[in-house]
């Protein structure tokens, strides 16, 4: 019994589903953000696994770009969460309805 690329894809699909459930289920902005990070990680796993199967290095380069974009996204996202918290003193997304029409 050897590990095929399908095992990695199935694991990445499971991790992505858990991340999506976290975004839909939790109301804490930080935990929602962490779920998005988990989804990005699972996509990275599919990139690297597919690149490994095809014998191409491009999968790893794509994963590297995703990591860079995720790092930029984390700095901005957490800065926004802190800025919102300073104004509203809450991290609950249900209470952040200030732009509701």
């Amino acid at each position, binding site marked *: 019994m050897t*590990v095929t690329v399908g095992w990695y*894809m199935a694991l990445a699909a499971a991790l992505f*589903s858990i991340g999506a459930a976290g975004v839909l289920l939790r*109301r804490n902005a*930080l935990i929602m953000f962490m779920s998005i990070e*988990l989804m990005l*990680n699972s996509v990275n796993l599919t990139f690297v696994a597919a690149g490994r199967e095809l014998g191409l290095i491009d999968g790893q380069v794509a994963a590297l770009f995703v990591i860079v974009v995720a*790092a930029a996204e984390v700095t901005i996202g957490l800065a926004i969460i802190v800025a919102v918290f300073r104004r509203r003193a*809450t*991290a609950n997304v249900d209470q952040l309805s200030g732009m509701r029409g």
Partner: protein
Amino acid sequence: MAETIVFIIFAAVALAGAFAMLSARNTVFSAMGLLTAMFAIAVLYVLLDAHFIAAVQVIIYAGAVMTLFLFVIMLIGVDRSVAEQEQIPFQRVITIVLAVGFFAVIVFAGRAAWITGSSLFADAEMNGTIEAVADELFGTWMIPFLTTVFLLTIAAVGTIALAHFGPGGLHAAGEDEEEEIVA
């Protein structure tokens, strides 16, 4: 055989960490669950011969990103637990059904290629060292790489701007419009 055992162990660790992140009441426990999942994914990268990506995963995700997350959690306050009330009826049930259905659809869509697997995976030689990645990154992907430089610069400037233009900042822009504070 050894590869199979390592994969099963660390796939289980990754899933357990992800579940811990999803279900933990305390935000710090959520962060620790995500950290566990990220370390397990780094080990899986090593199994896939992507050694440089594994190192980057540990340094950037497990190191920098999770430190930033924990810093913000401490800044906002760990004891402020957010009330998990359902805004939509049956939100929890609907979410679980959607997530499980999504997973089932992905596995079903890829079953032909995944379950049988391909012999390429066992045969192909892969060199995931920093030299091989750099050859590709600074050759074919040079322009996208330079674009990420601008992206990171913009992100850094934006973070500083967000920190400065707050209510107590030097330039309290737009403070009078948002007087209402929802506690």
